[in-house]
């Protein structure tokens, strides 16, 4: 099975910050084949388009996936109305995930805002080899720091207004680590300007970098060609598709 569609039971629901919810979903057959960086495509009652949501936890033994999402508009607001015990309609697991390489000795994971959840399965895969840099608007938007620490990863917290952790953007601590050296890979998800900054730091320091993108999507599986992003393939410009070619891309493929 590559992906499937069905209705799955929500085992747990938690509000983890303002307008940010965590669902744990029982879907053993999906959890068994999911890799870090993939996403689920969720049906919102009354809406034509599904909503792509990144995967924040993969537990094949418990047979569950965890998703953490923010209410961005009416569709995600509708999904957030679902409760523990309700069925959630998912097409999953979708997309091309992060490269996890057991030979890497030191990796840096960078998440910005609601881009932090997909970093958690990666932190679980790398454990103590990982440093997780997370950035948020302010202290009340901070999520998942305990979860990251529980994986054994080192955590660095930044906020735009300095109300928690370092006052500033995630690119500052990343730059310091990059200059120190010894990093095998940087993985990032968050707003485009942040990703662009991270890609530039990695390019300057010769560090392998993968980024996870988001785009407005329709089918979610590569058929409709709705979620285009500009990339280079064999030195030619190519509109790749976030749902199938991505959401994870090598930073060097991108045309920013």
């Amino acid at each position, binding site marked *: *099975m590559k992906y499937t569609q069905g209705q799955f039971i929500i085992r747990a629901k938690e509000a983890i910050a303002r307008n940010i919810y965590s669902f744990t979903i029982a879907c053993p057959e999906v959890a068994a084949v999911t890799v870090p960086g993939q996403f689920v495509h969720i049906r919102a009652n009354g809406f*034509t388009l599904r909503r792509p949501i990144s995967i924040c936890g993969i537990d094949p033994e418990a047979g569950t996936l965890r998703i953490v999402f923010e209410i961005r508009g009416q569709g995600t607001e509708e999904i957030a109305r679902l409760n523990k015990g309700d069925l959630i309609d998912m097409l999953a697991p979708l997309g091309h995930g992060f490269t996890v390489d057991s030979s890497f000795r030191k990796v840096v994971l960078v998440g910005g805002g609601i881009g932090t959840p997909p970093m958690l399965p990666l932190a679980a895969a790398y454990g103590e080899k990982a440093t997780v840099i997370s950035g948020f608007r302010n202290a009340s938007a901070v999520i998942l720091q305990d979860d990251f620490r529980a994986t054994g990863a080192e955590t660095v917290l930044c906020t735009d207004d300095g109300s928690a952790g370092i006052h500033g953007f995630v690119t500052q601590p990343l730059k310091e680590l990059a200059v120190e050296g010894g990093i095998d890979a940087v993985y990032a998800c968050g707003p485009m300007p942040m990703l662009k900054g991270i890609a530039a730091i990695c390019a300057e320091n010769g560090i392998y970098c993968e980024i996870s993108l988001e785009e*407005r999507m329709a089918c979610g599986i590569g058929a409709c060609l709705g979620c*285009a992003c500009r990339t280079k393939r064999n030195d030619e410009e190519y509109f790749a598709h976030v749902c199938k070619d991505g959401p994870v891309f090598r930073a060097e493929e991108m045309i920013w």
Partner: protein
Amino acid sequence: MADLSVNVCGVDFKNPIIPASGVFGYGREYEELFPLNKLGGIATKGTTLHRRTGNIAPRIAETPAGMLNSVGLQNPGIDHFIETELPYLLTKDTVILANIAGSTPEECAEVAAKLEDTDVHMIELNISCPNVKQGGAAFGTDCTMAAEVTRRVREATSKKLVVKLSPNVTSITEIAKSVEAAGADAVSLINTLLGMRIDINTGRPILHNNVGGLSGPAVFPVAVRMVWQVANAVGIPVIGMGGVSSGRDAIELMMAGASAVQVGAAIFTDPFAPVRIVEEMNEFLDSKGIASVRDIIGTVKPW
């Protein structure tokens, strides 16, 4: 079990349901979910003479009861289609409609000519794409141009030729009659309705192309009306589409005069929509004691 088979201009379909061009790619992604032989047919992604990169994102926007798209005919070109995609599709025991488009009548004819030596079952000529600057809808909104491009393609192919019509016109029946006179074997309608959404926080249109094609349940009543008008205006079969999301919708469009039905945006909400719609049609016909779906085509009794 009702008889769901239909015949459109001499081509037999095991059932009337066809995923519409653009939502289904070349079928591979959906085969992961269900066997393609459950479908009456497949209308392939619009394919042009040369590879097209398509429009800059965002290409998709949600709307009340529907969506806008402006993909811009991104496709790998007809040679790739013939070499790589068509041989695969032809093994799937379903009718293949090769949807083609071009910037000029000559280009459309050249694409059709390349399909002449293949085993593709039908050609669906798109004269109604709203998302490309040249050709596309420009052909579909003018009777003379619509007839001209149809005639050129007709001359280039002996395949059954379906011409896909735009709803963004004053009179779709006039366009339909023009393409019928120019040699079309059938017409399919409706393509998307031109629409627009604006992000009021940024003042920018959501689509990078500014405007795009509206589809989904919102357009269904327009589709029913246009299928009914065109079916009463031409002698060739009509393939209906536009916002169909249930077996009841498909039955309604056939009562309006459609000989077969394409399913588009519904597949984004429910990827199994085409298969489910076939089952729902069968249930409806059985519940009414109707032996064949052909018995409902064009049976609406207007006031």
